[in-house]
């Protein structure tokens, strides 16, 4: 009778909050590439048109990167001072950037030739953006508290807004109307200008604001929904949502970052909002609820953030001069659908006529079957039979070293293995001896395990049983180690939270039962 190794049972995968569809999607942005620059990266901007090259502004240079290779394809270094806000036009042919001397230059992206120079700001220009609807207009915001709208062909200023009283560090032309301009300033206010009237139409925030709109921190970023009805602004760590239709009422104020939010960006459909902050985090919000659905960590404070229009790249510039680019491998069906949509939208039928009709609906890829080499009919195949080596914990179980076996699975093994071993220990009546006689250093990983899996439906029951044993065993020595005490307290808190959750579930189930039974009655009647 041979030793029977521990059988790791397979469990159905629970849908934990950690691994929901949302986080699964954002986790697809893997393999971050880190590109080192010499100075803090002040701006990253993706070209709205294919191939979605992106402009990275750091120190006195604007660099154009190719998204596929993450290599610099163009370097524009025509600035005397620190360049700001490199921005690519919607057709992907022009680049605009300002610098700390107040000079604004427009380049051809391919030849890098200076096409226009707009030089009227006296102070550093932090925002230079093309208007997305009117490709000949450019917005610039400067530290001289002015906001200007330029006409590129004539190289002249169309409108100048001077209502801000401090640096204007953020601004955007509305994507729904080429006349509306949203700006945020260090005077703690967010203003909406109309180029037709040439005046400030809406004032949001500031010291005088009431309730949620009261703001004392300088506004770092503003962002407008594509529909142009809701604006977002960040001041310090607080994110505010303004309803422009309701006259600039603050509908929501959120504080999920520990430090100042320095970057805000929408995904392509504007269904998710990404914010980056000096606390080295990038958070993803669902804009329908403004709940954080995912969090990404970065190695340094994030200064700027951009997501590619095809949602395959997330680029973040950091204060230590590192550019991080996370990539996602798009699914086979995805670009085709996008192509089809864009082709239809642009009424560009060439691609159809050219015969490259993309597959509509779910395609099926035929699997390549490797043909096996056919041996001689009389050939005898000797099967190599390797003796299965026992795992560490099996070896220890074989030697009845229960405590060591338990310790060996507390390291990096999947939880199913951990709990399979614990189950085996229970079968052998060995869990008590495996848990007994531990000091705080050895007890800590066990409590950590309990804490981690107490709410897991696969192992919760076993964790409860085990926690009962641990508590019974170590109650007399409570209060001797602050570490263990904290862990016990956290365990208790988590159990309480789980109980509340279960109660909630029962309530929901009751409500659903009522609905269903009343619906059944309705059907009968």
């Amino acid at each position: 009778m041979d030793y029977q190794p521990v059988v790791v049972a397979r469990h159905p995968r629970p849908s934990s909050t950690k691994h929901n569809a949302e986080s699964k999607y954002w986790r697809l942005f893997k393999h971050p590439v880190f590109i080192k620059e010499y100075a803090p990266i002040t701006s990253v901007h993706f070209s709205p048109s294919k191939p979605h090259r992106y402009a990275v502004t750091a120190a006195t240079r604007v660099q154009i990167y190719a998204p596929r290779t993450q290599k610099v394809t163009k370097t524009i270094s025509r600035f005397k001072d620190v360049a700001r806000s490199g921005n690519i036009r919607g057709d992907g042919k022009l680049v605009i950037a300002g610098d700390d001397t107040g000079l604004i230059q427009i380049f051809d992206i391919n030849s890098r030739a200076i096409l226009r120079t707009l030089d009227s700001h006296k102070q550093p220009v932090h925002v230079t953006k093309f208007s997305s609807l009117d490709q000949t207009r450019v917005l610039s915001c400067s530290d001289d508290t002015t906001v200007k709208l330029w006409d590129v062909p004539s190289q002249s200023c169309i409108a100048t807004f001077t209502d801000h009283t401090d640096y204007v560090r953020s601004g955007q032309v509305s994507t729904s109307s080429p006349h509306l301009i949203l700006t945020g300033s260090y005077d703690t206010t967010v203003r909406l200008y109309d180029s037709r009237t040439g005046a400030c139409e809406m004032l949001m925030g500031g010291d005088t604001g009431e309730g949620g709109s009261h703001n004392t921190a300088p506004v770092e970023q503003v962002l407008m929904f594509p529909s142009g009805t809701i604006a977002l602004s960040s001041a310090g760590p607080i994110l505010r949502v303004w309803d422009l239709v309701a006259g600039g009422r603050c509908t929501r104020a959120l504080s999920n970052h520990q430090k100042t939010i320095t970057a805000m960006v929408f995904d392509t459909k504007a269904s998710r909002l990404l914010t980056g902050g000096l606390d080295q985090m990038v958070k993803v919000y669902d804009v329908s609820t403004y709940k954080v659905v995912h969090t990404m960590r970065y190695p340094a404070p994030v200064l700027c953030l951009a997501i590619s229009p095809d949602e395959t790249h997330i680029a973040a510039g950091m204060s230590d001069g590192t550019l991080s680019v996370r990539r996602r491998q798009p699914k086979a069906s995805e670009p085709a659908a996008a192509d089809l949509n864009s082709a239809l939208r642009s009424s560009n039928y060439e691609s159809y006529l050219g015969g490259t009709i993309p597959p509509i609906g779910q395609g099926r890829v035929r699997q390549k079957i490797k043909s096996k080499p056919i041996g001689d009919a009389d050939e005898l195949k000797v099967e190599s039979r390797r003796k299965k080596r026992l795992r560490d914990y099996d070896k220890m179980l074989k030697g009845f070293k229960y405590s060591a076996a338990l310790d060996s699975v507390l390291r990096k093994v999947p939880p199913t293995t951990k709990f399979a071993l614990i189950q085996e220990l229970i079968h052998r009546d060995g869990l008590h001896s495996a848990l007994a006689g531990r000091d705080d250093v050895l007890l800590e990983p066990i409590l950590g395990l309990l804490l981690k899996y107490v709410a897991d439906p696969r192992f919760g029951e076993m964790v409860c049983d085990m926690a009962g044993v641990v508590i019974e065993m170590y109650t007399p020595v409570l209060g001797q180690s602050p570490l263990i005490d904290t862990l016990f307290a956290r365990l208790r808190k988590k159990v309480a939270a789980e109980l509340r959750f279960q109660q909630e579930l029962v309530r929901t189930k009751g409500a659903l039962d009522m609905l269903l039974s009343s619906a059944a009655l309705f059907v009968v009647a």
Partner: protein
Amino acid sequence: MPVPVDGTRLAGASKPPRSAKISQIVAVPPLSSVDVGVAPRPKKRKGKEAASQDESPWSWTLLTDSSASRVPPVLTKDGRYFLSVVGSSVKIFSVATGDLVSTLDASTSANMDSAGSSTDTCTITSVVLHPQNPFQLITGSTSGLVRIWDFLDAVLLQTMSLKHPITQIAAHEKFKDCIFVAVTLPSKRHNSSGQATTEDNAAVYHISLIPSNETVGSPVQLPSRSKKIGKTRVTTGLVLSPNGSWLVATGGHKAYVCSTSNMKGGFTKFVSPEKLTCLAFHPSGEFFATGDHVGCIRLWYCLSDSLAKYDGVERKAQTTTMHWHSHAVSSITFTANGAYLLSGGEEGVLVIWQLHSGKKEFVPRVGAPISHITLINAIDQEEQYLLALADASFVFVRSGTLKISKSIARVKLDPALSYNRPSALSAIPLAIHTPTSTIVLPSSHPSSLQFFLPASSKLVAELEVSPSNRIARRDEKPLEPSRVEHAVISYSGEWMVTIDYRDADGTFHGEVFMKFWWWDHKSQFWILNTRVDRPHGLKKVVGVAFRPKAAAPEDLLVTVGQDGNIKTWGIRLVKRQSGEIENFWVTRTTTRFRVETPSHVSWSADGSLFIVAMGPHAALYDGVTTALYQVLTCPECQQAKAAHFVGPSGRYVLVLGARELVLWDLLTKSLRWHYQSSSVISDSVVHPREESFAVFQQLSSQATEPQSTRVLLFNPSSPTPFASRTLPFGLRRVIAHPYLDQLSTASSSFTLLGITQAWSVAVLGEDVLLPQEMGSVAQKIVEEVGARRKTLFHDMFGDAAFSESTARVPSTSPLVRPWMGHEIAEVFDAPSHLMPPLRSLFDTLVDGFLTRQSNHGQEQQETSTPEDVEMDENAKPFTVETRIERAVYRDEVDTFVEFFKQCAIQAIEPGPPYQNPHTNGTLIPKANGAQPSRANDVARSFANSPILSKGTPRKALAATPTSHDTPTSKSPSVIMTGKKRKKSIG
């Protein structure tokens, strides 16, 4: 000289062994001892009990022994057979093949006991080989009888009564015709309740085997001389030192030592701190070893001639302690050279201690707790250790490699450990697999199942339903194993579902698994297909039933659990990318009926409906849609135990309560009749083809009494049973056997399969005939042909000369040929005009019924090539005494003379002529056991016995002892020449 006791067995057979018991319980007159149908089998396993005047006979056959041996197995001197005690019989196994060779059954003569004890108390407690004659066996039993057997001929030679229950026997060749016997004595002290306490009073006697003059002629003799050596506690061991100078007994906390030269001096007692459990004497040194119940092994160096001075004083002695075992040591043995000590216990680990260094080696995981260790010292083989395990299997361990070389497993229902017994409430798996006609039985470990083929009485396979390491408990608290509670096989035989349950033990939750196993036709075994965790939560699953095949091709399963749910399960097919189709089981529907807890589920014969018994209701559901059709409520039975459809039409529904039977007619939707039973109904079985059913009543009896069961047979037409039978045992689980009943004569009779309270498998029914296992009756030990040693004849004439003789082996065909399968019978179900012509069917059909002549031995002989052996001419021929155990007839002798002549002329002499004074069979036969024998003799006489027995049927027992009486019979023993091979040849 052994004295024949002819009359013993005949007298035993004619007396009703259980009459007193039966009459007391069932209140019927003592049964007349008609043994009509069982005459060919002298074993008492088959009995017929006529319970009352109107009750027709009801026969039963036990298929398996229930219990494991509690007595150490004894090896024959030549190491080719070992004897193991099961209850009241001694079973003889072949070491080479592991087959059961013969059975010596003492119980048939147990009623000789004047105390009137029943057969149950007559268990054999000790077995030793006769010190002077290695073919004889001395057994001692709890009924106080010492029996001497000749195990080669399976003859009881002598019975001697000592009047007290025997616990141990020791014998030594130094003491001729004498044995040392430890018996328990009735105590003179009384405990608080006024009853005598017998547990701690025993004595060791020195008994002469020569009967006293008055009782020489009687079947049960009294010893001529009996001398008490001393009083002891109840002994756990009794040995004589190898040189015969010391007698050592252990009992309680003490070791009792007596010098055999000074037996009048009585015992000197040495005190051990713990209770002693086993004892072994060193083969050469003057010390012995004991094991105690906390796991210590002690070597006692206390044997000196100065013992007598301290007569009767309790003493401490110089000991060496060796401690590894954490539980009681169950057996210790010294190896033959005395360098090692083997010990084993509940851990299931054989520990080999090197005595001079104290170093240990282990043979771990032998499979079950070790109960006994015996050495096998074959002449020309490596030393082996034979371990008798607590689950009634035997394991051979080679001393050279310390690896398990072989294990002999037989059907074992008896739980290996007493605490492994499932509680009375839990169900017991029992099912029949039709394609292979095997029976699925529980095993000694509750988490496995075993597959038993009744046609050949063989254990086919064992399946571990929930694999686990069989480790011993840590402390006193027993480990909780998972238990298989249900095993149900689908009607196609392709699927088996098992439910194993591990109880919650205070701190930890329990586990329930439902497992679906798929029958792999290629490997002929079950493969786990689907595992369902907690099919009904943590509550027990109380009913599992597959849909009968007739309804639809796909299988469907219904389970009901104590959580109130009724679930149906179906197969889901999944096509893999590689194109193969995988199937696994998923839940189809879940439903429940009010707040009732279901207790049983069963299908109608056509598979369209299933019925669930719960509370006072029986609910009828559609098989496919699980729509509730009808609820039958019977207020008479508050808690319905089961509900069955009766008959193939499924018109009637039988609902079973605690003491009630209710029969419903589904056509009229009315209650047809109602039967109130006087005693508790334990179970019911519906006939698979007829409209009748059997109901089992447990006849109320005290816990101490052996239980009995009354079987009532009903028709749907009337509430009065048309027949009533009794069985002398309680039944745990009964199922109908659909195919075994074709073995019986009456076509409409029931044949049932049950597991008794004593954990043996019984086939019940009218005139049940089953083939019996080879060797399950007392018979002469004949040499298996293949394993026979080469004799001189082989060398002279070559193997081919002997191959013809094997053809004359009388076929030991069982009484009934094994049933080849149901398929043959189904051939004839078709109308005759659709059948192929009979002549094309005839051969295959008849081949199916004929047992094939075994030519196994012949093949083996032909493959072994004749070899030339050089002979030592200077070797002196020596005389070997022989035993004549039967008369040789004239024609037999003629055959041999003819044969010998023929061979002598035709065969080429392989070597130089061999000087042998006895070649022509002038050897003078000697009496059995009259001379001191060598170990070789056994082998030699074994080697010849097949030739002797060929052509003659097994002899009646009554005739055989007479030949012992007259050993100098006139028959010339021509063929004994074969014995004159010398050692150097082999």
